[in-house]
């Protein structure tokens, strides 16, 4: 078990967004969490990255470490959990290359940085072409490439992805998921949250369904794709 989340409650200004979420992921897996708007998908990822505090009683463990003892920057730099946030959130005033370099701020392994940078450019050759361009001027697809590349540069034991398909044309979506598969083959565990349930379940091996801050269903992707409830609620009948 690489990551285990138990009894996770999160509140924003007194309002509960998560009501006791529990799940776990093994090293090397691709797992997705699907759910509707406001179900608590992003909040779950933010809690793992420690961007929002978990209410008392939660258990968050990663490779034997208590995640709750880590500051958000240390989750990234010490544990190697990278996070591609919802809406990409690139630094538009920095160039493509600077966005990638900033992601290595805490790293002290020049050899590894060089290797990873080459890896990113081999997965996304477009970024190499555009390396001196401001991130704000990239197309939507290129921005998503940079968001994933940037996360990869911070560290890649596990990658949390918040709706990477958002705003992408179908073809771009497919090639993005191909790229993510390649990253996963290199040994990065992937936790993906998506509204696009069909796409997510085709990509992932297992999935969880979140509704109103609670996990209501879990199973293999195949089982979920064939589940009548899931079909009705998330796959359009």
């Amino acid at each position, binding site marked *: 078990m690489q990551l285990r989340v138990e009894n996770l409650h999160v509140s924003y200004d007194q309002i509960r967004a998560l009501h006791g979420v529990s799940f776990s992921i093994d090293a090397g897996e691709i797992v997705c969490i699907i759910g509707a708007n406001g179900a608590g998908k992003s909040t779950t990822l933010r809690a793992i*990255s420690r961007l929002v505090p978990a209410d008392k009683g939660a258990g968050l463990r990663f490779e034997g470490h208590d995640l709750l003892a880590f500051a958000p920057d240390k989750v990234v730099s010490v544990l190697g959990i990278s996070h591609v946030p919802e809406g990409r959130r690139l630094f538009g005033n920095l160039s493509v290359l600077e966005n990638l370099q900033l992601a290595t701020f805490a790293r002290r392994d020049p050899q590894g940085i060089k290797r990873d940078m080459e890896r990113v450019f081999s997965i996304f050759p477009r970024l190499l072409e555009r390396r001196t361009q401001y991130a704000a001027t990239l197309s939507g697809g290129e921005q998503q490439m940079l968001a994933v590349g940037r996360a990869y540069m911070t560290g890649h034991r596990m990658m949390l992805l918040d709706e990477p398909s958002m705003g992408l044309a179908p073809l771009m979506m497919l090639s993005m998921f191909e790229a993510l598969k390649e990253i996963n083959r290199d040994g990065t565990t992937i936790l993906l949250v998506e509204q696009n349930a069909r796409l997510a379940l085709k990509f992932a091996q297992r999935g969880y369904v979140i509704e109103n801050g609670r996990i209501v269903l879990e199973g293999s992707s195949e089982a979920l794709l064939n589940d009548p409830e899931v079909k009705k609620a998330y796959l359009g009948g």
Partner: protein
Amino acid sequence: MAFFMQNVINALQWGSFYALIALGYSMVYSILMLFNFTHGDIFMTGAYIGLGVATALLALVAALGWSLPGWLLLVATIIISMFITSLLGVLVERVGYRPLRSAPRASAAITGLMIGIILEYGNLALLGTQRLSFPELIQTTTYSVGSVYFTNKKIFIVVVALLLMVGLHQFIQKSRWGMAMRAMSYDFPIVPLMGVSLNLIAPLTFAIGSALAAAGGILYGMAYPVLDPFMGILLGWKSFVAAILGGRGSILGAALAGFLLGFIEIFTTMVFPSTFRDLIAYSIILLILTFRPYGFFGQAHSTQLRL
């Protein structure tokens, strides 16, 4: 013409003070969306720290029986005082602002005002009402070109201010810390996801801003040696005006607006009696802001504060 050039030199000198202080306001604003209203008093404290360091250095050199050139002592005073004052900036961030990082911005603003008052009256309590005077580390030499007179001090002040600004620009554009600051000015909640600690970059920004203010304080002390615990108030507010006029969060804008303020003030007194100076100068600035409400280089994009 000579009279005009004379005033250009004076304006550059005043502009240097405003610009050095304005940079600190601008840097802190750009990464934390926070008006650091302690900053004027950090300038004042920096000047006093400079006075203390200069006095100590003079005593030390005398005790050792060395004879060092005055400019060397001056440069040493500036560097040491910048360092000490940067620690004060770190302290202000740690004690005053960090606990309020997610509090309403108004709470943070009044915290700054209160720390400022503490610095002013702390100074008064510590040093009493005696007026301390900045030791003269270098002798004034006056040069003339045609009938324009200028002193070595004025040149020193303007050159040091410009060097510090160029240095700051290089730091922000070229170093990884500068890169992190630029990133933070764009979207700060996301910066930790890059493995960058906000608790490293925020104090660093306060440290640099405070160090620049200290340099400004010492340069000010060279030109106007009698120090006063309340000297940071008016200069602080005017520099804050420069920071806003430059465009909130714009480093280049703050520097240019600082010099512009110097020019407007000095040239107002060329035409009007000096008691009219601020009345007219700041009416002009008000007018400029009516036409350019975001200042000269105001960015349409301001720091993202929410996840």
